[in-house]
């Protein structure tokens, strides 16, 4: 339909989540018409993010080096770990300013339908961190969805007797993703977290 490079760009863009064929076309023509430096800046940013950003070796959050900014920040409280599904879930919790501990990013949630088992998530790594000692509380902040709740339950069971495990209070709208909840709500949910197992 279009010349090779254009249809290639449309094909690549339409692979992005939430971008259909129509939107991909619009974006492609927008890029085509935009000034050269802007278009190249976009291309460079995509390249750079893939080359420079990896996962933190401790918490699996996004990181430019082997360890992320939060894990290397001396002022953070090293006795608590907040467990989230995705790196995007760290941002809204940080924005509340209520939490000063460390994180652990699982990289998803348990889902038998999709064949996602505990081994497919960074759960063993989390247990390893707790086993190293010094952790007084693990806050489970997986999403209040079917899969997020099951993941929280699984982790709580495995950490039972090792440390105190709490779950974000259900101030979050049921089924809502952390990523889309507002700061006040997440702040309240953090303040009202309930215990899933004693220490």
């Amino acid at each position, binding site marked *: 339909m279009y010349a090779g490079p254009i249809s290639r760009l449309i094909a690549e863009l339409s692979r992005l989540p939430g971008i259909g064929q129509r939107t991909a076309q619009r974006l492609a023509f927008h890029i085509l018409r935009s000034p050269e430096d802007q278009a190249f800046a976009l291309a460079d940013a995509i390249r750079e993010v893939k080359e420079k950003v990896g996962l933190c070796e401790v918490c699996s959050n996004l990181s430019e080096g082997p360890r992320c900014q939060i894990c290397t920040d001396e002022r953070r409280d090293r006795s608590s770990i907040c467990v989230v599904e995705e790196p995007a879930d760290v941002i809204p919790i940080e924005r509340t300013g209520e939490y000063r501990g460390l994180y652990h990013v699982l990289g998803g949630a348990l889902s*038998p339908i999709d064949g996602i088992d505990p081994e497919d998530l960074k759960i063993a790594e989390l247990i390893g961190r707790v086993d190293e000692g010094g952790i007084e509380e693990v806050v489970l902040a997986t999403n209040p969805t*079917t899969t997020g709740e099951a993941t929280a339950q699984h982790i709580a*069971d495995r950490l039972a007797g090792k440390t105190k495990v709490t779950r974000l209070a259900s101030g979050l709208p*049921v089924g809502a993703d952390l990523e889309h909840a507002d700061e006040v709500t997440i702040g309240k949910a953090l303040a009202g977290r309930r215990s899933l197992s004693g220490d």
Partner: protein
Amino acid sequence: MIASLEARGYRNLAGELSLSIDPHLTVFHGLNGAGKTNLLDALHFGLTGASMRSGAIKNAIGFESDSARVEVEFSDKTGTMHKTLASLDRSGQRRNLVDGAAPTASVPLPRVALFHPDHLQTIKGPPAHRRALADQVAGSLSPSQTDLRARYGRTLAQRNAQLRRVRAGELPVTELEVWDSRLASEAAPLVASRRDAIEILAPHFREAAITLGLTEPGIAYKTRVGGDEESIRLRLAELRTEDPGRAYVMYGPHLDDLHVEAEGRPLKQFGSQGQQRAAVLALLLGERSALAGAGRESPILLLDDVMSELDPRRRELLIGAAVAGGQVVVTATDLSQVPSEGFAPTSTSYRVEAGRIDAGADSPPLAEAV
């Protein structure tokens, strides 16, 4: 309260149709195939974005049109007017707007309750229909409970996916524990919400059913799931360890049922067509009166093709009870089948012919532009 309907390109409705909806009783009458059901469907589409007929939504676009567009004007509790717009075209573009913007919780749309002869399935059909009814009533009485059913369903699907893998020998049976525990957490509130909803509905159902001529009518919620979250969890654990076979899969609110009966016998097995119809109508009327009792707004009741099946006395009783519960729109082949004088404070009737409102007849002011 719904004030008016405008439609263009919707099914067989011709031209730019615009008519007012009576605060109490609106009647569409005309020959078979005139477009009476299509008018109800247009209202349904305007308020919900979905057709009440099954099949692809694109089938709702008029044969001669490229797009369909319906607008419904309504007032909220405070009397402020709002307008919905629902549209679709042949390329698949759809829009659902309220006051020209995306719908928000701050302007709740009027709800719709529908009687259609197919709805006898609620009584005659498999239990899934009645569970859906129980959940719908629970959700309408208490909107925060609307998603309990879907949450339980998603958890059950995950649990069963895990069970398949256990049975295939891919995982040890202990890998079911987490999912059973989640299932118990989702089952308990679902069972409680169904029980509460049917308890609230029962007296209203009984009253409406007696009005419509049923003897000793009753409705009861039947579940094998008893007790709280913890006892459900324990029961699942027992079944799982004893034998993760049939009994295990057959335990849970996904197997609940409602017993609807008259004269001490279930209408599903023993009811005549007429009794079953009366029960379905009584469920609709009962739900509306339960909502009114709970201080919630009553849904607009759309009654399609029901009049011809009832004797004159039943028609009067039905219309009387329906109008007492809120706004009603009825279709009939003959206007004389719908008692209005003395049964509704006000009423408006439209004669429908070949997708048009016949202006010559009994209809009050209406605009049917070119």
